[in-house]
């Protein structure tokens, strides 16, 4: 009897053990299936990311080609003289680097029959380092509420075009009389050479949208006067605010080259330049 009882107990135990083993096996299988699913999911994600990266790369290459095309069509040679840097102002100019950049850009702008694949690669590399030219219309459009200003959209667009013209007009004399972009001016040796020694002034420009935020914060009104101490090339402060806010602006600059860059062509030799873009003539005192 006792044997039978023991036997029954063994059977129960065996059944329990079997059940446990089955549960464990099921759990292992589930876990494996889960792992498999996760791996497949990860694989799919990696593929998607790789595809997205490839697409980004393709778009970037297209942009670079467009940029090079635009540079050839619109800016031409003056752009080649300008090194564009994404580093801090303290980084200064590296002449050797600049020469290499210029050679690469020249190569890219040369007729395609003369361009080698090496040159093309260099040019692509160089163009990646290049900051996009400043697009005033786009930038200001983003940060000014046209309705608040009280202008019609078409008038606003016209005003922006006028700003761009004025900037070109003010800065055009710098690079051998050729018109160039704001970016071209501020990255040129003329403006940045004050950065060379650590004891001299640094150059870095606050961007137009940031300046407009400041103007809004301090409630700058059209009947007030704005003073920029160390105006640099003046684009983001004095010129911008005179056009957008309509206030009188004064800039003072100790670096003679930067001062000349910011001043109208007619004021090249003068120490103090004054202009009202809404009037027909430009006066200097």
């Amino acid at each position: 009897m006792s044997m039978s009882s023991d036997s029954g107990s063994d059977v129960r135990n065996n059944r329990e053990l079997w059940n446990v083993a089955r549960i464990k096996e099921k759990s292992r299988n589930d876990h494996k299936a889960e792992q498999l699913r996760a791996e497949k999911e990860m694989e799919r994600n990696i593929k998607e990311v790789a595809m997205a990266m490839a697409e980004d790369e393709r778009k970037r290459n297209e942009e670079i080609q467009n940029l090079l095309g635009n540079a050839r069509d619109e800016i031409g040679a003056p752009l080649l003289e300008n090194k564009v840097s994404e580093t801090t102002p303290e980084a200064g100019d590296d002449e050797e680097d600049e020469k290499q950049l210029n050679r690469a850009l020249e190569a890219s702008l040369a007729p395609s029959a003369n361009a080698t694949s090496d040159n093309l690669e260099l040019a692509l590399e160089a163009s990646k380092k290049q900051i996009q030219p400043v697009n005033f219309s786009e930038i200001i459009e983003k940060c000014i509420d046209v309705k608040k200003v009280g202008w019609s959209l078409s008038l606003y667009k016209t005003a922006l075009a006028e700003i761009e013209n004025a900037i070109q007009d003010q800065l055009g004399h710098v690079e051998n009389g050729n018109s160039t972009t704001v970016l071209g001016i501020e990255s040129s040796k003329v403006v940045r050479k004050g950065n060379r020694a650590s004891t001299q002034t640094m150059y870095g420009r606050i961007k137009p949208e940031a300046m407009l935020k400041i103007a809004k914060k301090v409630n700058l009104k059209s009947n007030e006067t704005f003073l920029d101490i160390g105006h640099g090339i003046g684009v983001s402060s004095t010129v911008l605010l005179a056009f957008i806010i309509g206030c009188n602006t004064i800039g003072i600059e100790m670096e003679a080259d930067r001062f000349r860059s910011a001043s109208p062509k007619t004021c090249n030799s003068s120490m103090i330049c004054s202009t009202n873009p809404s009037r027909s003539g430009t006066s200097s005192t």
Partner: protein
Amino acid sequence: MQQLNDMFDEPISIGDIKHVNSDAKSYDLSVLTSADVIFANNFNGVYGNGVEKISRSLDDHVLSIFAQSKAGARLVLLDKSSSIGHAHKEVLEGLDKGISSKLTKTQAADASWFDYEEMTLHQPNVSWMKEEGGKSIQCYIYTKRD
């Protein structure tokens, strides 16, 4: 500009722009002190004592112009001035905490000649920082009291 003016009954008002080279001997300091808003991009202390050509730092000159400006004038800096002293609110807070207990509130008001506030400029805001992932920078605004 004619195109702009044609769209309005009255001519569009665009301010005068005046650029002064600080080497010029003839400019009038009163022109500078007449400003309502004074801006100096002195980010990272570049107007500090390291700047060549001058005995006093540019920061000192900026503060000097601000000190001579009219009541209500605003000074905007990208680097906090360490030599301007305490703002009105700071002095009053010090009074409340007993730090400036020897002063009355009226005296405290006289002890400080400006109000102070900060604003954050989120990227993209300056040409030397990347558009994507660039850091925000602080802007320090001082307002001259009556």
